[in-house]
């Protein structure tokens, strides 16, 4: 009998737990430890942020589902890692602290045979002075509660615009090293469409602010893509959309400080500027959770497990951009020091960014961090689960399931406006996610045909269909496993 502990119940954690439970007999124990009581389908947060969906539409409680599916669930947060056990406990364990109910505040040693760290990112608002959801007129759509607050503020602003007030809206990244530009891109287009729907578009100046060097970088160094019968750069496509929608943009901007209605930022040319706004949605930087790890004798071994995020089978040797390769990226998400610990999704430490790193003249890094959200999270979680299942069933340590982001496709169905007949979506697929310049030297490291973009109503329908399909899948309803990650 084996016991697998999954930390986190987001996209990666929930996918891993679901597949483990389905494929392993009941004699094996699957335990989920997560401080969040609800599963939320994060890609739909942007629709909560424009008031077109309610939080209840994108979440469901985990406890009843896990009870029904025989998954042990502890609503607790991980405190520290003890991969060798200690003098009192022979088995490896994590120290978890309950966050709700009668047990709130009590700590428990949760032992394991295999550990999946799917804790995702810490939303590091503190890294930008004054940036906090709902403060200084700046908001976030990173969680459904943040998105709900953003909508309340935006709704109030729309009322003021109807009364004749001209406003400035700023949307983008809130730190020099933020990622998730895609979410901000979706949100700015949805906000723009909502203003048109409310007939107040001419009352607002909408500006995109981003740490990207070019539009359409998305933390993936941009893309060269098929667009109809043409070949187009993602920067050209996003520029076309923004110009058509009357959206201004500021690029290469590292937001460093937010005051009431003012964002201060540094640009790559070394100048310090500020942008005023009446409503902002700024994505914070992501960081690891700051977990500590200890060996059997209680000595700190955090460096063996973490470098911000969790260390996995990546090549972390520092090297210049010109020498980066897809081989640097992990394949199995296994920690090299402890073979029974894995970190899929956002929890693994990337070897470096995907976009070309750039510094301002003052030495500030202004580079998008690499995205690992959504689809890559699901795929990497499933392959980790499959490897653990094989290790348990065949009692060997060989890992047959591999999935490097340098050999994996991704789809980004970005909403550009909500509505069954008036909505729109920007559908982009990329293969591979990390560009392979050796394999595809003439097409910016990507395979054309599998890297394509298109704009239109069908994109909105697809995004909506995926919303329902993935919530169905997450609820583990009949034949849920037929829906790919």
């Amino acid at each position, binding site marked *: 009998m084996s016991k697998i502990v999954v930390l986190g119940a987001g996209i990666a954690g929930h996918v891993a737990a679901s597949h483990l439970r389905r494929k392993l007999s009941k004699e094996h124990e699957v335990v989920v430890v997560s401080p969040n009581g609800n599963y939320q389908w994060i890609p739909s947060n942007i629709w909560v942020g424009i008031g077109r969906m309610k939080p209840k539409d994108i979440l469901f409680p985990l406890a009843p589902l896990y009870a029904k599916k025989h998954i042990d669930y502890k609503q607790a947060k991980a405190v520290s890692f003890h991969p060798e056990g200690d003098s009192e406990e022979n088995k490896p364990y994590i120290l978890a602290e309950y966050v709700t109910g009668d047990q709130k505040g009590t700590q428990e040693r949760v032992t394991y045979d295999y550990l999946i760290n799917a804790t995702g990112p810490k939303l590091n608002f503190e890294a930008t002075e004054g940036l906090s959801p709902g403060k200084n007129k700046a908001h976030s759509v990173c969680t459904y509660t943040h998105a709900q607050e953003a909508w309340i503020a935006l709704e109030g602003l729309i009322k003021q615009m109807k009364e004749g007030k001209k406003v400035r809206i700023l949307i983008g990244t809130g730190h020099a090293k933020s990622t998730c530009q895609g979410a901000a891109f979706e949100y700015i287009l949805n906000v723009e469409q909502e203003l048109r729907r409310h007939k107040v578009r001419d009352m607002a100046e909408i500006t995109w602010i981003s740490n990207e060097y070019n539009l359409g970088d998305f933390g993936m160094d941009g893309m060269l893509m098929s667009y109809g019968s043409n070949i187009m750069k993602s920067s050209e496509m996003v520029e*076309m*959309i923004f*110009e*058509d*929608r*009357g959206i201004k943009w500021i690029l290469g901007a590292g937001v460093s400080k937010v005051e009431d209605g003012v964002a201060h930022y540094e640009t790559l040319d070394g100048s310090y500027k500020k942008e005023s706004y009446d409503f902002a949605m700024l994505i914070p930087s992501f960081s690891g959770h700051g977990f500590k790890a200890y060996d059997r004798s209680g000595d700190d071994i955090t460096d063996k497990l973490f470098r911000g995020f969790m260390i996995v089978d990546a090549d972390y040797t520092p090297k210049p951009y010109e020498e980066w390769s*897809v*081989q640097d*990226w992990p*394949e199995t998400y296994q920690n090299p020091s402890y073979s029974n610990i894995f970190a899929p999704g956002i929890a693994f430490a990337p070897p470096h960014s995907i976009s070309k790193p750039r510094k301002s003249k003052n030495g500030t890094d202004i580079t998008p961090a690499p995205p690992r959200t959504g*689809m890559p999270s699901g*795929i990497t979680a499933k*392959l980790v689960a499959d490897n653990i299942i094989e290790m348990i069933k065949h009692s060997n340590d060989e890992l047959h399931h*591999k*999935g*490097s982001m*340098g*050999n*994996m*496709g*991704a*789809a980004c*169905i970005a909403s550009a406006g909500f509505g069954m*007949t*008036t909505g*729109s979506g920007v*559908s982009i*697929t990329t*293969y591979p996610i990390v560009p*392979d310049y050796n394999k595809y030297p003439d097409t910016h490291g990507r395979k054309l045909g*599998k890297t*394509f973009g*298109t*704009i*239109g*109503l*069908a*994109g909105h*329908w*697809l995004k909506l*269909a995926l919303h329902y399909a993935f919530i169905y899948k997450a609820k583990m309803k009949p034949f849920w496993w037929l829906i*790919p*990650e």
Partner: protein
Amino acid sequence: MTRRISKYKRFMMMNPIIQFFKFIYLSIKVLIVVAGGHGGTRNA
């Protein structure tokens, strides 16, 4: 605001009948990219 998408293109993008077929095409194409497999890179 600068018009960068022509009226014809916009009609194509927003016509529900055309977009219905585009939806089917897009779903299949996305499925091929997404479910088309993944693997390692070091022994390739």
